[in-house]
């Protein structure tokens, strides 16, 4: 614990991208947010906490890079972002882990990674509200939660469960991003109101996005990235 706090000491803000539901765009938003912040001159770290389905390295097209060692582990910079992920060590192989094991991996990553002076550490969380989320709450006291959802009833319901929990235990919630909007609906905005948290705006469904995965330069030029920049203005 003392070691972990020391490692996180020089980080100004920790933004945890969560959703409860899977496939709502957490990884794409977390990574795009990192790219945008980095382009603006901030020093940015990105921690991929989805050990069963890491995605940030794919979006950033991180290939042939490894962390360097030296009194700890220093994550490599990819397109200006210090990315930490289990993928450096397991590649494309499966990493089946039970809960306590997930907790151990997370603790270990926090204890050995040297982020150095960092303006923003973006944490890309997996779906659910299990081991990883409970450990972020327990171990990263600086964490501010950014909620991502789609306007689908199934996503909204699962997201609500998570938000209720976060509000109950009084961790900072930055607000809700509505992602993959196809047609206009007020559902997300109304739910945000009902939960008494900020509605941060929407990101449209972008049919060209798939072609920009693994190409950060193109990704930054999409309508998706423009939408994400608008969200950033509000946060």
């Amino acid at each position, binding site marked *: 614990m*003392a*070691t972990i706090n020391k490692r996180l000491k020089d980080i100004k803000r920790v933004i945890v991208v969560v959703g409860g539901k899977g496939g709502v765009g957490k990884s794409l938003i977390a990574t795009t947010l990192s790219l945008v912040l980095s382009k603006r001159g901030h020093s940015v770290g990105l921690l991929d906490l989805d050990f069963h389905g890491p995605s940030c390295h794919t979006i950033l097209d991180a290939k042939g890079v490894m962390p360097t*060692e030296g009194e700890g582990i220093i994550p490599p910079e990819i397109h200006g972002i210090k990315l930490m992920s289990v993928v450096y060590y*397991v590649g494309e192989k499966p*990493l089946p882990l039970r809960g306590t*094991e997930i907790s*151990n*991996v997370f603790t*270990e*990553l926090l204890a050995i990674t040297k982020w150095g002076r960092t303006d923003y550490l973006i944490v890309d969380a997996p779906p659910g509200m299990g081991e990883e989320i409970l450990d972020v709450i327990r171990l990263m006291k600086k964490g501010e939660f950014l909620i991502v959802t789609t306007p689908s009833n199934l996503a909204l319901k699962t997201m609500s469960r998570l938000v209720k929990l976060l509000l109950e235990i009084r961790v900072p919630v930055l607000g809700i991003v509505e992602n993959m909007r196809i047609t206009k609906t007020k559902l997300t905005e109304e739910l945000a109101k009902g939960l008494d948290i900020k509605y941060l705006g929407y990101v449209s469904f972008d049919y060209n996005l798939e072609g920009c995965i693994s190409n950060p330069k193109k990704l930054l030029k999409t309508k998706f990235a423009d939408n994400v920049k608008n969200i950033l203005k509000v946060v």
Partner: protein
Amino acid sequence: MHEWALAEGVISTILTVAKKKDAKEITEAEIKIGCLQQIDENIFTTAFRELVKHTPLEKTKIKLKNEEAYFKCRTCELEWNLTNTTNALGREESEAIHFIPELAHTFIRCPRCGSPDFAVTRGRGIWVEHIKILK
């Protein structure tokens, strides 16, 4: 070598325990090293000695002891130890487990039934076994 990070962790544990016990001086610390992680003892000792300079642990002796790594399969209940593991680990695989012991679940399988669903029952990580203090 992230042995430095491990040494930092051990040092902060020793200091916390010593404080709890109201120690005036910490004469010795016994440190257990789980074999799963294959920690380099020389680097660890160098790191420790370097990091404790000008701290209350400057004169503390350290004793390093090893603990063999044991696994237990959740599928067939077999227990086995690392040295018995049939699929010998390559350099990169060892390296991965060196950093994060749980990555064993990518590279090690139960030698009887092939399951990746096993527990590391002993020999994981590094920890302070006990300390000798003066009050």
